[in-house]
């Protein structure tokens, strides 16, 4: 008997009892994610994180790459990467293009996923889900807008598994800029404008509203009308949507220009229509220290273009935006910009809360840090006014009263008086005035380069500062940046001309 018990026990030892089917215990999967308003909000909030990317992500890389414009120069001749960005001699394996491309497409992927979640889960009421659907489409449009402007033709997918592009092509060829605008960006923004609420769902003002969607749509039309598509009929479309924002929207200019970058003003939604907000503990920017010169214990990555500075009208914007003298950190003596390392003024706009010790414009004077808080403004009401003025004159060939009113609102605020209003200009003069005003108003806000490209003014404007030694007059090859070289290899694409 004992023997049989032992044999039975032995057989038992040979049986197996563990289960080979193991599913994630502490993570949500596509199958287990409950689609509710809360999870949709979390998923949509994730879009800002993937867009920001990392400490040296979106706002750092875009700032570096857009040194190509005429408002900023690299702050140190020994920093090769930034010098090459400034000179528009960006190498194909440059460290700025690759992260940007990556973060944009990661955001698109996540946006496509949110859109698919909402569409395949009718359990959440449309009232609740519409704002997230609109937001995801807004973000997808924004990412493609950056992509089309920086690289031109690019893969275009709206599939939540990224299994194929908009034509179902699994090889993901580079789709034409025209396709990207007409088949993704414009429909997304039109839809977003219908879906998004008029008031941001988010206290901090990060989430877009229908006004943000319409403003971007106006900007998109301006780009479609300019280089490279030259669909000049789009000026009228731009005029129409921007006028809607002016007439129906809640946004107005704030009284003082500088408050837009101060802690007190950066969350104010009077003028800020859409912006990326940073905090030290979440999505920090590395702004502050990059804009400080070596004399100020900073990294001297960027400085203001001295030629741009000299052509800048003497208004409150100039007073605020440029650092023309500073205290040397070692000698404690004042030095003027002609004696700064880069022989150019430094930039004040991002010296906001924290990180800049005594060189900051507000906040804790004692702290010196690499990361900082602050704001990356994407659209302000000033953009709406100036884009409208430009669209209007370009669409009609005439300068309307509203167009004058738009540019003069911006100038009144800039000069702090009404003595600098424009009037009596012909269409060409007005176009030129709006062109300059847009550059000054938005200086260092990573918009100038895109304006120069769509208006085909790169060589003329960048060429003004010969010291930069920029790559000019190469059949507009410098209008686009190189597609990250590894991406070309993985997909078998031909890179943009000139790279």
């Amino acid at each position, binding site marked *: 008997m004992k023997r049989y018990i*032992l044999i039975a026990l*032995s057989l038992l*030892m*040979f*049986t*197996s009892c563990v289960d*080979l*089917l*193991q*599913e*994630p*215990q502490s*993570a949500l*999967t*596509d199958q287990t994610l409950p689609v509710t308003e809360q999870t949709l909000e*979390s*998923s949509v*909030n*994730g879009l*800002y*994180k*993937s867009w920001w990317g990392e*400490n040296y992500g979106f706002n750092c890389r875009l700032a570096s790459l857009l040194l190509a414009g005429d408002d900023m120069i690299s702050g*140190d*001749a*020994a920093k*090769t990467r930034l010098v*090459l960005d400034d000179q528009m*001699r960006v*190498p*194909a*394996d440059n460290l700025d293009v690759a992260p940007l491309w*990556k973060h944009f*497409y*990661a955001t*698109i*992927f996540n946006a*496509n996923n949110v859109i698919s979640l909402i569409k395949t889960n009718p359990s959440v009421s449309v009232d609740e889900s519409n704002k997230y659907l609109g937001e995801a489409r807004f973000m997808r449009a924004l990412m493609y807008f950056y992509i089309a402007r920086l690289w031109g033709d690019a893969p275009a*997918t709206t599939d939540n598994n990224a299994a194929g592009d908009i034509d179902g092509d699994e090889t*993901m060829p580079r789709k034409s800029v025209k396709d990207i605008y007409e088949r993704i960006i414009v429909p997304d923004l039109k839809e977003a404008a219908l879906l998004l609420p008029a008031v941001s769902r988010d206290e*901090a003002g*990060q989430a877009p509203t229908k006004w943000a969607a319409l403003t971007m749509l106006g900007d998109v039309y301006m780009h479609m009308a300019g280089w490279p598509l030259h669909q000049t009929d789009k000026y009228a479309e731009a005029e129409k949507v921007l006028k809607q924002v002016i007439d129906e929207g809640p946004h107005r200019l704030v009284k003082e220009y500088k408050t837009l970058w101060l802690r007190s003003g950066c969350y104010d939604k009077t003028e800020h229509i859409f912006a990326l907000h940073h905090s*030290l*503990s*979440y*999505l920090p920017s590395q702004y502050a220290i990059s804009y400080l010169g070596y004399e100020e*214990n*900073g990294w*001297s990555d960027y400085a203001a273009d001295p030629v741009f500075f000299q052509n800048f009208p003497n208004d409150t914007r100039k007073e605020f935006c440029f650092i023309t003298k500073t205290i040397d950190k*070692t*000698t*404690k003596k004042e030095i003027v910009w002609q004696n700064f390392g880069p022989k150019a003024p430094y930039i004040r706009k991002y010296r906001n809360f924290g990180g800049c010790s005594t060189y900051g414009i507000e906040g804790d004077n004692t702290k010196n*840090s690499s*990361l900082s808080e602050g704001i990356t403004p994407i659209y302000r009401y000033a953009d709406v006014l100036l884009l409208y003025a430009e669209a209007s004159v370009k669409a009609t060939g005439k300068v309307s009263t509203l167009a004058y009113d738009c540019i003069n609102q911006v100038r009144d605020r800039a000069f702090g008086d009404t003595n600098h209003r424009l009037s009596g200009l012909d269409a060409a003069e007005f176009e030129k005035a709006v062109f300059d005003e847009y550059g000054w108003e938005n200086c260092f806000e990573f918009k100038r380069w895109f304006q120069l490209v769509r208006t085909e003014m790169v060589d003329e404007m960048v060429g003004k500062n010969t010291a930069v030694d920029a790559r000019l007059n190469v059949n507009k090859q410098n209008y686009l940046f190189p597609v*990250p*070289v590894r*991406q070309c*290899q*993985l*997909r078998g694409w031909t890179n943009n001309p000139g790279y």
Partner: protein
Amino acid sequence: MKRNILFRLTTLLAVLALGTATLFAQEPVSGVVKDGAGEPMVGVSVVLKSNYGVGTVTSIDGSYTISAGAQDVLVFSYMGMTTQEVKVSGRTHIDVVMKEDASALEEIVVVGYGVQRKSDLTGAVASINAEETLKRMPASQVGDMLQGRVAGLNVVNSSGAAGSAPTMRVRGVNSIKADGGPLVVIDGFPGGNLNSVSPSDIKSIEILKDASSTAIYGSRGANGVILITTKSPSDNKVSVDYNGYMGIGVASDLPEIMPVGEFANMANDWNRTYYKKTLYTENQITNFINGYDTFDYMDAIVNDYSVSQSHDVSVKGSSEKMRFLLSAQYTHYEGIIGISRSDNLNYRLKVDADLAKNLTVGANFSGRMNDATANGFSGAQSILTLAQEFPQTVLPYEILRDEDGKPIYDANGYTIMDKNRPTQGTISNSSIYNPIGFIDEQKRNNNLNQTFNNWIQAYINWEVLPGLTLRNEQQLSISNQYVGTTSSDKSYQGSLKGKSSATYSDTNAWGWRMTTTMNYTKEFNEDHRINATIGVEQSLSNTLSLALEAEGMTTDKIGWKNMMLSELSKIKSQSVSRSTAISYFGRVNYVLKNRYMVTATIRRDGSSLLAYNNRWDTFPSFSAAWNIKEESFMENVEALDQLKLRYGYGVSGNQAVAAYSAFSTYSATIGTAGTVYSLNIGNPNLRWEKTNQHNIGLDMSLLGGKVTLTADYYNKTTANAINTVILPDDMGRSSGLRNAATINNKGFEATIGIIPINTSEFFWKADLTLAHNEATIVELGDIESDYMELGTGWGNAFYRYYEGQPIGSIYGLKSLGVWTTEDFYNPELKADKISPKVRAGSYRYYDKDGNNIIDAEDYEIIGNGQPKFNWGLNNSLQWRNFDLNVFLIGYHGFDIYNYPAARLTSQLAPTPALADRWVAGSNEDAKIASFGPNRDAITSYEQVASSTFVEKGDFVKIKSVTLGYNFTDSALKSVGIDAARVYISAKNLATFTGYSGNDPEMAISNPLRPGLDAGVYPAQTSFILGVNLTF
């Protein structure tokens, strides 16, 4: 007599491994050893019972001579024979007749899930006698013991930091993602940790190298297997052993720094060329030269000496029905650079009891505690590289200044540094943090990094019928790791956000494993015997981890210890995971006429790690051996003691992925406005990595064991190797797991043992291991490119895996030196057309595609870091009571990318290499470009390697020299000591190399990207004084 001959090889090996014969200056005792048939026996081990290290081996005619005291006891042992103890009792001639041991006919070796007669082995298995090895080179870690001892087991030191473990690989690179070294099996329980075993507890180590030996471990065997057997006392007594050593070390080789005056002048040149101004006045430079306002960073990061000590005590004993071993080992290290400390405690209690004649039970409780702290030492934040980078003219702290900003001086005219304000930023690049700040921070912040591992194991062994045994093993493993860090606002971390921060994480894991095996061993007659095993194994493992982070600590002193005392604390991550596995396996070993032997194994593995549809796979193997010496036509070849040919083929696998890799999951982060999701995509198509291996081997013994040779050739191919490959970003993520490549490793390895001298006074044995391996990417799999990267981590950018190329290909720009004035203005070379722009004195790169643009399209192979050949040579000499051991290793045929040199020469750093930079007209042959704009088309030394900094890495090292003395005085006995040995040892005594950077050995420690000098912790030359005592 046939059996005796059959057993010769293994006996010889065992005896040689045991070491060797030293004859004491006592009365010589001689005699002849014969077997039961009256035939003289060769290779019988004769040792003194009082000191097993002293002994000899009988020669061809069975004779032996040994020096022994009149009171000594001689121990005669031979595999398959009963060990005999014979008292000398003043005699000078003792003949012995060995009798066959019915219970232990054979020397047995441990193989997977069982034991085998050593002579019946058909696979490539190397055995190491741990006790003897440890004596030759004191080591507190098993890894150190194995370096250079086993051909095909590549052991390379990865760092000189306190307590760092070496990298171990069996026969090249078998896997990319799971390149984690061999599976460790301790006393039959797989999944052990080499650091958890005290070397002096180990009886023997077997290394299973070919797939026919490892296939029994199925999905875990592809990286080779190390089997460790701990000591089990057998004599009926209790003994106590103590082994200990203490050592001090000095840095073997430190980088040179440019004299400060020279550096200041160079800084002026830098500033003139870039910014059209000078930095330092003549006055300042004179001051620097006189020692004012300068700081010697290299001197400040290096400690005067390092400390190492190891102590282990073991108590073991046995009675008729019980055996036990109780041991503990404590090691303590303090490193040579910065703050670097490691304390380690290992413990073990092993008990075996015979419940009945056919029933044995046992338990093994073992564990490890480790507590370590160290400065960072890799890549961009290596304090060694930072110390070479940071200008001596920038002080590590801000100096005290008066209200007007003027420096305050002390009585001797020196400025005073404010130790609370570390400097951030050098002259040329502010983003660098000074290395002294890192050291201060390490001193200040009470960081915690503790690991606890415990294994509780038990077995029951039941001999159901004669020859048929049933065994059940249970194992519970528990591990805990606690990591806490506090970073003050002055620290590097603090400088990011301008405030203090803290992190705390704990990872707790437990696992259970049960193995049931049934073994049948039967000798039908002299001509046939069979050894068969079948088994089932199942396991589950659970991991629970939690990480917290906080910033703006209320007080740094409490820091991570209470993270609620902060401005903001939150959960950084949390995860719970479980994985399971089930395996069925079997093995048959059949031997015909002691000449022909075959082994076949099969294992079927199921794992929860892969997608459910891909969870099962099967791993078969087959091997055969032919003992030629047993053939009748070989009988008369007197010089040949042993000749055996082996062939094996097998498949082993690798489930090289983390749990749930097949699933797409949402990861959550806590943001400012609530939780944030991002989607990470899994790969449900992942399959097992499978390694097919052929092995042909030869075992030979000549001239009565004076020459032994084991040689193996292998060819193995790993299909479906899993890697994290770079994906097109438009797929939504930049990298993902793929079955990405097929890897081939081909190689030859040999172990040669020679005893050139074996006299009664003097004994010399040399062991040489030779190994050649070539790891190649045969083809790329699930990846849309003609090459792949290793992944996205630091340093991987320098390596690319192309089809047909060897692993370790360093990619980058081929440097043609520096543009000379003559070449630059030579219109045929069109230097003015090159983009990015160059000038005379710029680096000049080969424009491979001839489009005048120097970019990624011009990259090519500029070196290979995979050593072609390596060897280890161990010389053991004994003269009377002295033993001397000299151990050397060498690696040849590989290149190193000198990352520190590339980084240091790219900027204004006090590195002497910059002194030799290009100067128009006078130094136009320079390797290093002159300062000024357009200096270099390479925009980042972190991303792109230049062949300027690729050098030959070949080296030879004197790894250790150990001199020992064995006390045999009967005086020891009177104080209760049975045996005693003292020794001194020098480790890393010298390195012979042409490489200009740090220790070349460390550059090859990562087999996937060999040849990358990352500026790691430098090696030390250490001197050790130790003692072995047996009570």
